[in-house]
């Protein structure tokens, strides 16, 4: 993209305009296009998907009226919420209260800058990509705390405080698990990390060695906690804190928080895919750059959506942990474990190739055994469930 | 142990404080002097042969003709599976009785309800506030001569007849 701009500048397309201004305008335009054409529908469709998936798991139907299978439900909801009255409570902080949703939204939106959808489909391949991602997603906590404080509501305050404690704590295991991958790849750049992996599952960092396999689960759990997802959704625990930090919000501002949450869900999936699952790597089937781009995009998209689906699945299944248990889980188990993973990976990097291969094979075998065992459990649940009960609930 | 034996031993231990045992009704009851209610309850709860460890129910009856409010205590023992009903007559114009909260914790709420709806004052009660009705409600609704307020906090308690409403 930059190359294209440079070429255009050299050809004299923007004669008399400073280079920086051209870059800025181009970046803003790209951002607007990405935002309106990609991110908004993405978050919206994720919300629809979550509701549908959730509904099926709860033997309900879910939204199926607007558009085919209800896929346009998010548009209808958005329009409804924009039409709504914009209420700012009198006792709320008049400046921070309206600002908070945008801070949260910005935190998640900035993350899209470094998400590599394909070999060339990335807004900016920063050389500190993953570090940038970790830091901008931390902006969310500022927004949430802002919302909690500015609402001048005790439930909001409790929610904001819980969220701050939670997100700050879970940054550590998340960061450490990311670090294991960074050590292996030797780069912080998102594209670099993907390029260090291959398209085959055994080339992924997930199955690279036992420690990265462990780090993968640590990262996914920590990411769920950072995204305020069940079982770590205590900041907005509706049965305890009414609605947590969004208690006083309504209309579009309220929607912005959830927009960010659903978008974040996709970001989690994308980061997991990038770090541990080979990103957009596809088998070398074609040389056509356009076709290849589409293939890469689809691969990445589906891999990421798989983890989005898993997060939804978890949300439909698990109850919520308590605050002290949440902190205990983080500090007593996940932080030490992620340190062990980090050190283990470092040790692994000093091994010779042969033992590395052996360990890699063992990890893969173990992973496959885990997955098979998992599906056996699921199969058991399916066999002992009575599906006809779901299809025909009214006897 | 049935209620008759319970009454017999109560009469022996607390002479003059229990009276009028009625055994030929569905649930035999006896009357207790209001001064003695706490000690009798304490005895009934702790004595090994009775062990009425549960206060099943505590309520009151209003008898305007006899000018009395009657407290009714339903005592039950899970250990011996027997029950006795104690009744205490209180004067209607100034109903006051000692609380049995020390014997059974649940009496706290039961007595609050009786205070709220009948206006019986429980002496020694730790938290004697209205429980069902707002604190500034006037009158005790479960008394037979209760007439409800015309309005409460500016809200009318009367409902216009439906026909009148339609005509308006």
């Amino acid at each position, binding site marked *: 993209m930059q190359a294209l701009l440079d070429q255009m500048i050299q050809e004299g397309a923007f004669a008399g305009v400073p280079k920086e201004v051209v870059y800025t305008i181009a970046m803003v335009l790209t951002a607007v296009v990405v935002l309106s054409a990609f991110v908004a529908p993405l978050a919206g469709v994720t919300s629809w998907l979550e509701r549908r998936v959730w509904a099926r798991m709860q033997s309900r139907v879910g939204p199926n009226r607007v558009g085919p299978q209800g896929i346009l439900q998010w548009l209808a909801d958005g329009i409804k919420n924009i039409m709504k009255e914009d209420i700012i409570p009198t006792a709320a902080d008049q400046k921070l209260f309206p600002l908070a949703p945008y801070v949260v939204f910005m935190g998640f939106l900035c993350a899209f800058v470094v998400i590599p959808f394909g070999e060339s489909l990335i807004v900016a391949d920063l050389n500190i990509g993953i570090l940038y991602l970790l830091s901008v997603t931390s902006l969310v906590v500022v927004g949430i705390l802002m919302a909690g404080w500015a609402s001048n509501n005790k439930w909001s305050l409790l929610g904001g405080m819980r969220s701050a404690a939670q997100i700050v704590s879970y940054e550590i295991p998340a960061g450490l698990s990311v670090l294991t991958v960074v050590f292996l790849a030797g780069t912080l750049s998102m594209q670099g990390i993907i390029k260090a992996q291959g398209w085959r599952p055994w080339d992924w960092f997930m199955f690279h060695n036992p420690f990265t396999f462990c780090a993968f689960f640590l990262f996914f759990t920590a990411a769920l906690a950072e995204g305020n997802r069940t079982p770590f959704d205590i900041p907005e625990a509706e049965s305890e804190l009414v609605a947590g930090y969004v208690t006083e919000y309504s209309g579009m501002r309220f929607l912005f928080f959830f927009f960010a949450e659903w978008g974040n869900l996709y970001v989690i999936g994308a980061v997991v895919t990038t770090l541990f699952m080979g990103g957009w790597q596809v088998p070398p089937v074609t040389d056509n750059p356009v076709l290849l781009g589409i293939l890469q995009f689809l691969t990445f998209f589906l891999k990421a959506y798989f983890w989005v689906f898993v997060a939804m699945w978890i949300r439909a299944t698990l109850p919520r942990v308590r605050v002290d248990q949440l902190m205990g889980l983080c500090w007593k188990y996940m932080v030490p474990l992620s340190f062990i993973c980090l050190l283990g990976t470092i040790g692994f990097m000093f091994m010779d190739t042969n033992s590395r291969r052996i360990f890699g094979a063992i990890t893969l075998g173990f992973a496959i055994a885990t997955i098979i065992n998992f599906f056996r459990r699921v199969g058991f649940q399916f066999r002992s469930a009575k599906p006809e009960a779901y299809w025909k609930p009214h006897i | 142990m049935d209620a008759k034996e319970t009454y017999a031993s109560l009469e022996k231990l607390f002479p003059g404080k229990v009276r009028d045992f009625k055994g030929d009704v*569905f649930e035999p009851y006896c009357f207790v002097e209001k001064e003695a209610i706490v000690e009798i309850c304490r005895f009934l709860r702790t004595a090994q042969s009775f062990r009425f460890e549960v206060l099943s129910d505590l309520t009151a009856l209003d008898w305007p003709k006899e000018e009395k409010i009657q407290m009714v205590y*339903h005592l039950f023992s899970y250990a011996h599976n027997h029950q006795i009903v104690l009744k205490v007559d209180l004067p209607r114009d100034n109903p006051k009785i000692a609380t049995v909260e020390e014997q059974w914790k649940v009496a706290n709420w039961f007595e609050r309800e009786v205070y709220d709806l009948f206006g019986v004052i429980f002496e020694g009660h730790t938290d004697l506030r209205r429980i069902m009705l707002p604190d500034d409600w006037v009158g005790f609704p479960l008394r037979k001569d209760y007439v409800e307020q015309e309005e409460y906090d500016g809200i009318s308690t009367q409902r216009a007849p439906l026909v009148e409403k339609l005509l308006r």
Partner: protein
Amino acid sequence: MTDYAADTGFYAEEMTINVGPQHPSTHGVLRFVVKTDGEMINEAIPDVGYLHRSIEKIGEKVTYHGYVPYTDRADYLAAMFANQAFCMAAEKLGNTEVSRRGEFCRVIACELNRLASHLISVGTFGQDIGAMTPFVHALRERESINNLMEEICGARLTYNYIRIGGVGYDIVPSTMTKIAEFLDHFEPIVEEFNRLLSGNKIFIERLANVAVVSKEDALSYNLVGPNLRGSGIKWDIRRDIPYSVYPELDFEVPVGTAEVGSLGDSFDRFWVRIREMQESVKILRQAMTMIPKGPAISKVPRKFRPPVGEYYARVEAPRGDMGFYVVSDGSEYPYRVRIRTGSYTAMSIIDKLSKGIMVADLIALIGSLDVDAPEIDR
């Protein structure tokens, strides 16, 4: 803590928050004034009365027959039991025989209602803890029960089914078949529910050792029903003060066994409810095979005038001992109706139990005691 404040000059204030009257997990209109130190609760003072409909006072103004529909409203999640208790009191006072088929119909209807009520209880409890799916699954089953109830008595929530002398409508054979089908379908569902929720590690961790009620407290605060049995006291009115045809039926009384934590914790109370549902299924199956032929209701005069007397009828409702203390002065109207409910006493213990637990535990506590606002306020 005061020392810390004096030493450092930092004074921590208690935060007072209102849980309710409108709060997602107060199951109706309850209010707690909660004083917290951050997440820890120092004191939770229950404030009830938002749903007070003066059902007791209404009882003095309507006839015995006319009062039965009002009893439905005392606890609308388990309306059948209030019907049953009031009718038992009235029948005892009026010396009315209940037809034998009527008794069996009552047992069937009551146990179905118990299933429905417990399903609501465990489902919403799961939701309070944060698991959304079990709630919907439980309500799906309850929906089937509501459909059955509709076939039995034409109503889904406030039944007005049990009348003085028997039941309003006979249960027809086709409905019996449907109930049997439902039970066959329901039994594995309970197991599935256990796999989904009761066995969940997070769920157990949330409930084990939370809000432990000792035996002494349970007696002193007069907890009843599953809450009492959760504390390890084997006491069930169906078994110990038998009424209706329960003595002829064979069922277990589940008690808390400190399955995961200490005796009388929140999980024990929850677990007693789950096992009670299984016992109810057993009772229903027996009652359906034993039900005799005959009229569903015996002859009761339209003007029902019981002689002077009083009776305290107790039934084992889903929330425990439901007592109707009915006093008759020989007229057409009851002189006094007193409704004693399980939730009322369960509510009074919350003040004691809530000291030193967390906000999230308070929600678990309310759910595990299964308090129900309409039943508290009446």
